[in-house]
């Protein structure tokens, strides 16, 4: 199948055979695919590797046959996005998260859109932590793992702003026991649902919650980027 002008983000590239790259791409209409870029590691390659770096919106022409696609052409769409510092580190986290949670050849236009606007926010210098929480929420939503942010998981009662909850990945928010550690406030969950940025303590609680939920959907196991971001002092 020949695909032309497909809006795409490269998420990762690794050497493939002698002079090629195997690119892990997020495409708008074909989901995540592996694309072989032949000969781009040659010194005088026609297509420059810098055009196939992550975080740039590009249009790809490729041939989709079997598991891997073969790149035919790539051109930038719009201005390149420049992620620096914490935003750059966060971008690496975004890529690992998407690769680990999505399957190849599973079209997810909503994930593509959320990914693109998240990169834009990171490039524009919006606060990293809140930007990541919004993306995690939208990603889980698009993949059918939507968080229950407005009602209690067991009783179905509406969450109370001042209430204290424990979030269980399979069930949702349930009222916390007295003195239970690692709780999240009702208002923080309601803020996330309404796309309002909570305060610093709320953001920290939501970060813990997301990590727990993502770990659950990964079937256990860690994301490498968590270590990198944590030790790199990223204000995430």
């Amino acid at each position, binding site marked *: 199948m020949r695909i032309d002008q497909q809006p795409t983000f490269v*998420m990762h590239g690794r050497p493939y055979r002698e002079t090629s790259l195997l690119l892990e791409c997020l495409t708008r209409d074909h989901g995540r695919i592996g694309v072989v870029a032949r000969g781009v590691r040659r010194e005088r390659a026609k297509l420059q590797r810098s055009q196939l*770096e*992550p975080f740039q919106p590009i249009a790809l022409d490729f041939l989709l046959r079997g598991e891997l696609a073969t790149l035919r052409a790539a051109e930038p769409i719009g201005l390149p996005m420049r992620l620096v510092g914490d935003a*750059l580190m966060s*971008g690496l986290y975004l890529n*690992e998260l998407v690769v680990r949670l999505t399957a190849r050849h599973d079209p997810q236009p909503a994930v593509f859109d959320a990914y693109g606007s998240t990169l834009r926010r990171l490039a524009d210098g919006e606060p990293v932590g809140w930007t990541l929480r919004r993306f995690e929420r939208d990603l889980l939503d698009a993949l059918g793992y939507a968080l229950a942010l407005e009602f209690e998981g067991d009783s179905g009662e509406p969450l109370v702003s001042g209430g204290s909850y424990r979030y269980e990945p399979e069930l949702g928010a349930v009222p916390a026991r007295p003195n239970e550690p690692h709780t999240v406030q009702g208002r923080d969950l309601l803020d996330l649902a309404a796309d309002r940025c909570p305060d610093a303590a709320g953001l920290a609680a939501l970060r813990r919650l997301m990590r727990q939920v993502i770990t659950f959907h990964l079937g256990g196991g860690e994301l*490498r980027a968590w270590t*990198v971001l944590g030790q790199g002092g990223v204000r995430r």
Partner: protein
Amino acid sequence: MSSSSKLLAELIDALRCLPGVGGKSAQRMAFHLLERERQGGFRLAAALEAAMRDVGHCSRCRTFSEEPVCPVCASASRDKHVLCVVESPSDLVAIEQATGYRGLYFVLLGRLSPLDGLGPEELGLPMLAQRLGEGEVEEMILATNPTVEGEATAHYLGQLARAAGIRVTRLAHGVPLGGELEFVDRGTLAHAFGSRQVLGS
């Protein structure tokens, strides 16, 4: 392939681990060695065997070395106050050949890349942090590649160095010498434009 000799088939197969060597060239190499270069073949075999067995990593900079400390790290004439961090031993060689750099190196043997399973531990950063804490290094030159992962690595290293109170510099990147702007790719041009410098008088 069908071959009359099992040893020959084994040699051809083994040669294919070399970069750029497919079945055809492996066969050509094997025949060449057997027909015309027996001496060279023995020498190659001995050198390969010795290098594979004895070349390890320098305990100071992690580059390839058969000594516990490599000649650069051991040299008394190198400036111990400047440390240049590179991704690979070949980057080290490139800088040695192209510049008059007289300081020391640290070789990461990779770059931060969560999707490749490469984090701070794999890059020897605890060892680097300890070295920065020793107080001898005054400037750290970040010479990781100008790729997304190389930049992320530089950012991480920069934080490490600043935490130890060390001056950090990064290789400049921009328009290649002898290049023309209209042929430079957008990313490079945007970067060069963004990091333009005041013209000295």
